[in-house]
């Protein structure tokens, strides 16, 4: 369990979150509004995102870099999506088994081959569902634990596990060519 605000103790941390908000407030609000199409809800989503981000400021080294910018977008976008789903009582937790996806049918060489088209693979994954790509990036690139991701996205750990499971499954399908061969976008 995380306690909101405890880490924002010193002046540098305070300045950091202030700088982040001042610099990206429009981007954050635009992102939330794009999902929710409601000014008040978008406002709530951004406010929640700032509260969450406050607890992980130590992970942000360079405020202006792309990694920070994308991180902020991912957090606020997913908070907005979760708010939207909650309000409309949409749940997507009911279908999949939660066991880790076994994609051992892909051999190491195939991963190396797909690296070349990683940009396309990432786009493809995001086009299947941006939340899948977002959870994947939070887990493997930003190195957050499942619990941390759940806190940041204002959702449950179960939900995060399902999304990560689906993300890996979708990636597996992309790798095996289900999307690859049929796509006109293929490089």
């Amino acid at each position, binding site marked *: 369990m995380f306690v909101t605000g405890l880490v*924002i103790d010193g002046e540098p941390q305070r300045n950091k979150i202030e700088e982040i*908000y001042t610099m990206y407030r429009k981007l954050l609000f635009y992102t939330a509004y794009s999902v929710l199409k409601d000014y008040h809800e978008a406002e709530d989503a951004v*406010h929640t995102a700032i509260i969450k981000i406050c607890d992980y400021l130590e992970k942000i080294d360079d405020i202006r870099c792309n990694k920070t*910018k994308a991180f902020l*977008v991912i957090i606020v976008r997913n908070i907005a999506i979760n708010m939207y789903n909650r309000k409309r009582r949409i749940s997507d937790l009911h279908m999949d088994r939660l066991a880790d996806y076994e994609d051992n049918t892909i051999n190491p060489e195939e991963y190396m081959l*797909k690296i070349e088209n990683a940009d396309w693979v990432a786009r493809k994954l995001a086009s299947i569902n941006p939340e899948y790509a977002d959870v994947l990036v939070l887990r493997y690139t930003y190195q957050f634990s499942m619990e941390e991701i759940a806190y940041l996205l204002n959702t449950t750990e179960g939900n995060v596990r399902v999304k990560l499971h689906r993300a890996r499954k979708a990636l597996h399908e992309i790798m095996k060519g289900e999307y690859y061969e049929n796509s006109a976008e293929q490089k």
Partner: protein
Amino acid sequence: MKTRQSRNDEKLEKLKSAFYDYIGENHIDNICAEIEEFNEEINRIKVPVTLDKRVYQYIDGISGKKYRKKPWINLNRTYSRVAVILLVLFSSLMALSIGVDAFKYTIQNFFVSDYDQYSSVRIRDDNRAKNVEIEWESYYYPAYLPDGFYIESVNELLNIREIKFKNNGNDYIYFTQAPNDVDISLDTEGGEKKEVIINNRKAIFTAKDGKNILVWNNEEYTFHLTSNLDEKKMKYIAESLEKK
């Protein structure tokens, strides 16, 4: 000792993690490319003033809570005592002044608010300046001003427009706008200068002798904000400019 199979699984797991990380890096690049694509639209969006207020209050609130708690309890006790004394004084004054015209005006400006533990007495200043009307046709005006500020005066000279805001304390905000080709001199010599960002554009913030100056511009105008308010509030005002 691990079997050959489990070692292979472990290696494959590491490879997969690295692969997912690499896909993640590409996803980050894709998000940033998308942001670039919608940059104009993003810059045009108006962030609600209420959101700015909420967020800045949240940041301020967290930082101050810990240190303010104790003195605040003591202050509450002191306030209770002071309020009682003021209330007694006020009642005496009321009794003395009834029917005396010279006192009537002052007494009318007293306001009493009742709280659980004490009564607060304050004097309304009826002589304070009223908001001056702006009669310009096209100008920029801050959508956000800290509470209590009103327009004290409005001036225009050689395309340079200045609005002076004040509150009932000693705070002031001088806001100047001029077309980009007009030169304005500001006394920033010896001040502590630094670069800040206002609406995704570079701006200069100077602190000098308790006075802060913020200079920035957009496509058509250069703006100057001079005030004794802190940097955060000034940036907040600057970010909130709207064309009227």
